[in-house]
C-alpha cells in the first residue's frame, strides 16, 4: 500500500461536474467558535490529577527559566533571548504530550519547550549564547535545531514524519510556529504536503497576538488561524493557550490521531507574549500597558494554581516545593552560563563538509597561523 492509497489522501478526486460527488465533509474540520477550555469548567474534574500536577511543576520551572534567561542577557551571557513568559502552558504541554520516540520541531522562541522535553538548558541556549548554532545532537533528543528563519521548520517536520511512517515507525512530529509565521509560504506548503501525505504531524500555532510589533489584525483577516485547516483538509482546533490542561488535552488528541494514521491537525493556541519580543525590543512602541495587564490576569500559572488549589490538589507546601525546584534549576543554569564557553576557532572548518576540502584546509592553515602568531604576541 502506498501512502497515496492510505485513507484520506485520495478522498478528493476530480470528477466531471455532471457526476459531482460529495467530497470530504468540511464540517468536522472547522474549529469551534470559542477556544477550548478545561480549567474553571466541568471538564477539569475529569482531568488526571497527576498530569495537572506535572504541568504545574513544569510551568513554574518554565517561568523561572524565562526570567533567568532574560536576566542572562542583561549580564551579557546571552546574545539575545526571546522570552516565552506568558506562553508557558503551550511550551510545556507541547513537550509533555510527546513520547520519547516522537520529534519536536520548535520555533526560535521555543527553547522552553525543548527544555521541558528534557534538553539541557545550556545546550538549548547555545544558539542564543553564541558559541555555536545548535548546541545539541538533534537525533539524540529528537528535537530539531532551534533556528530563526520562520516557518521553515514546518516542512522539515512533515518530511520527517512522512519518512518515519514510510519506515513503519510509530513516530509523531509536533511542529511549533507563531501567528506571524503562518503568513509565510512555508506554512502553506508544509500543511498541504502533510495533508496530502497524511503525515503524522501536529502543527501548533501559538497565536500570541504579535509578530514583533505587528498585531494579528495586520497579519490575517481569517475568522481564526485554526480556520486555515479546512483549506488543507485537516481538522483545525482552537484552544485557550493559557489553559495548560486544555492545551495538553487538545494536543494529546491530535497526537493520538496522528499516531493512529488519522493524519495531521492544526491547533491554534490563543495566548499572549507578555514580555517584549526579545530583550532588544521596546514593546511600549506598539502596545499599551492595559492590554498586557489584562493578559497578566489570565496567566497560565495562576489559572492552573487556582484550579489545583480549589480542588485540593495543591497546597502551600506544593507551591513552595515547585518554586524551590525552579529556583534550584535557575541557580544551576546561572552558574553554568557564567562559565565562559570553551571555543576552538578551528571548529569553523570542521563541519562544513563530511570531508574537509583542500580549499578549506588551506584556509584553516591560514587561521591556524594567525592564531599561533596572536598567541606568540608577535602579530601586528
Amino acid at each position, binding site marked *: 500500500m502506498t501512502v497515496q492509497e492510505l485513507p484520506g489522501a485520495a478522498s478528493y478526486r476530480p470528477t466531471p461536474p455532471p457526476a459531482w460527488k460529495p467530497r470530504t465533509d468540511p464540517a468536522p474540520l472547522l474549529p469551534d467558535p470559542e477556544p477550548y477550555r478545561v480549567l474553571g469548567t466541568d471538564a477539569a474534574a475529569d482531568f488526571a490529577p497527576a498530569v495537572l500536577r506535572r504541568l504545574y511543576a513544569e510551568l513554574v520551572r518554565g517561568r523561572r527559566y524565562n526570567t533567568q534567561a532574560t536576566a542572562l542577557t542583561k549580564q551579557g551571557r546571552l*546574545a539575545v533571548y526571546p522570552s516565552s513568559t506568558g506562553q508557558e502552558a503551550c511550551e510545556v504541554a507541547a513537550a509533555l504530550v510527546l513520547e520519547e520516540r516522537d520529534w519536536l520541531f520548535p520555533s526560535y522562541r521555543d527553547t522552553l519547550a525543548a527544555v521541558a522535553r528534557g534538553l539541557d538548558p545550556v545546550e538549548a541556549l547555545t544558539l542564543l549564547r553564541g558559541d555555536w548554532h545548535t548546541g545539541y545532537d538533534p537525533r539524540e533528543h529528537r528535537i530539531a535545531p532551534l533556528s530563526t528563519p520562520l516557518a521553515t521548520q514546518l516542512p522539515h517536520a512533515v518530511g520527517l514524519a512522512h519518512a518515519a511512517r514510510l519506515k513503519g515507525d510509530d513516530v509523531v512530529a509536533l511542529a511549533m510556529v507563531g501567528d506571524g509565521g503562518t503568513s509565510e509560504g512555508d506554512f502553506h506548503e508544509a500543511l498541504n504536503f502533510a495533508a496530502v501525505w497524511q503525515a503524522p504531524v501536529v502543527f501548533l500555532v501559538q497565536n500570541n497576538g504579535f509578530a514583533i510589533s505587528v498585531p494579528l489584525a495586520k497579519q490575517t483577516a481569517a475568522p481564526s488561524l485554526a480556520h486555515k485547516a479546512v483549506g488543507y483538509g485537516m481538522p483545525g482546533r482552537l484552544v485557550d493557550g493559557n489553559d495548560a490542561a486544555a492545551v495538553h488535552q487538545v494536543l494529546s488528541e491530535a497526537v493520538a490521531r496522528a499516531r493512529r494514521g488519522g493524519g495531521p491537525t492544526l491547533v491554534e493556541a490563543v495566548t499572549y507574549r507578555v514580555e517584549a519580543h526579545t530583550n532588544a525590543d521596546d514593546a511600549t512602541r506598539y502596545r499599551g500597558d492595559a492590554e498586557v495587564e489584562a493578559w497578566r490576569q489570565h496567566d497560565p500559572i495562576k489559572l492552573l494554581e487556582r484550579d489545583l488549589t480549589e480542588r485540593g490538589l495543591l497546597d502551600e507546601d506544593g507551591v513552595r516545593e515547585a518554586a524551590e525546584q525552579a529556583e534550584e534549576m535557575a541557580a544551576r543554569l546561572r552558574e553554568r552560563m557564567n562559565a565562559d564557553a570553551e571555543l576552538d576557532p578551528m571548529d569553523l572548518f570542521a563541519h562544513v563538509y563530511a570531508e574537509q576540502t583542500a580549499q578549506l584546509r588551506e584556509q584553516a592553515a591560514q587561521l591556524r597561523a594567525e592564531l599561533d602568531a596572536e598567541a606568540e604576541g608577535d602579530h601586528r
Partner: protein
Amino acid sequence: MTTVAARQAAKPATMAQALQRAMRDAMAEDPTVHVMGEDVGTLGGVFRVTDGLAKEFGEDRCTDTPLAEAGILGTAVGMAMYGLRPVVEMQFDAFAYPAFEQLVSHVSRMRNRTRGAMPMPLVVRIPYGGGIGGVEHHSDSSEVYYMATPGLHVVTPATVADAYGLLRAAIASDDPVVFLEPKRLYWSKSDWSPDAPAAVEPIGRAVVRRSGRSATLITYGPSVPVCLEAAEAAQAEGWDLEVVDLRSLVPFDDETVCASVRRTGRAIVVHESTGFAGPGAEIAARVTERCFHHLEAPVLRVAGFDIPYPPPMLERHHLPGVDRVLDAVARLQWEAGS
C-alpha cells in the same frame, strides 16, 4: 533642489538616521514612494531606519505587512506595475531569501521582458553583513547572489553621507536597486547635513577614499573602515595604500578602479562575503583582464572564509580585519617589481 538659505549645518548623524532622512525626503517629494516591510510602521523597523515615517506619512505610505517576504516583494512588483515606487525592507539578509524567486524571476527581468514598457522602479533594502553579534541567519553577506542577476543594480554605502545620497539615487532610479545596508555601520556617526547629498552622483561611481601609491585596496560597505584603518597601519611598514570604495557593485566602475590599479600596480579586494565565487572573484578577474600588464602581482582577495557564517563568539576569526589585510599586503610580491 535646496536653496543656499535652506541649507542646514552639518551635525553628527548616524547612518541609520541618514537612511531614514533619505526615505523621508523622497516620500515628501514624491507621493508615489511607498515604504513597506515587516515592522517598518509603528515600530520604525528593528533598526529604527523607518522611524517616524508611518506617523508622518500615514500607514498607507509606510506599511507593516504580513510576515512573508515573497509576498512583500511580490505585491511591491504589482504596486510598481501601477506606477508606485515601493521601497521594500527585508528585515535581515537571510530573510530576503524567500523573496529570491520574485527578485530573480520578475523584478530583475520585467523591464527587459516587456521591452521597456514596464520598468520596475523599486528598492529592496537589505541590512547585511556581520560583526553585530547576531545569531545564525542574521549576518549573511549575500551581495553576490544579486550581483550575478542581470537587471538589478546593487549598491552599498560606507559613509553617512553616501547612505543618504545613494538611497536617494536608488529611489529615484527607474530600475530595481538592491540596497545593502551594512548593519555594523548603522550606528557609525559623522558630521553630515541632509543638504550636502545634492552633490552626490547617481549610482555607479566608485570613490577613492584614500590616495596612495603602493597598492590599491578595493572594497565596499562594512570593509571600508577596515581598509582605511589598515592603510593607516601600513604606513608604519612603508606601504602607502590607496583605498577605493566601490559604492556600487552593479554597475561596476571599471574606470575608477582600473585607473587606481594601473597607477599602483598591485591590488587586493577586501570584503566580508565568502571568497569562493564571491564578489571579489569578479573584481579580481575583471581588474586582471583590464590591467594585466600593469600588475606586479596577482590581485589578491581578503574575504570571509568559505564557511557558513560563524556564531557570534567566533565571528571575529571569520571577518577580514586589519591584520589579515596587512598580511595580504605583505604577500604582494614586493621584491618582484617597481
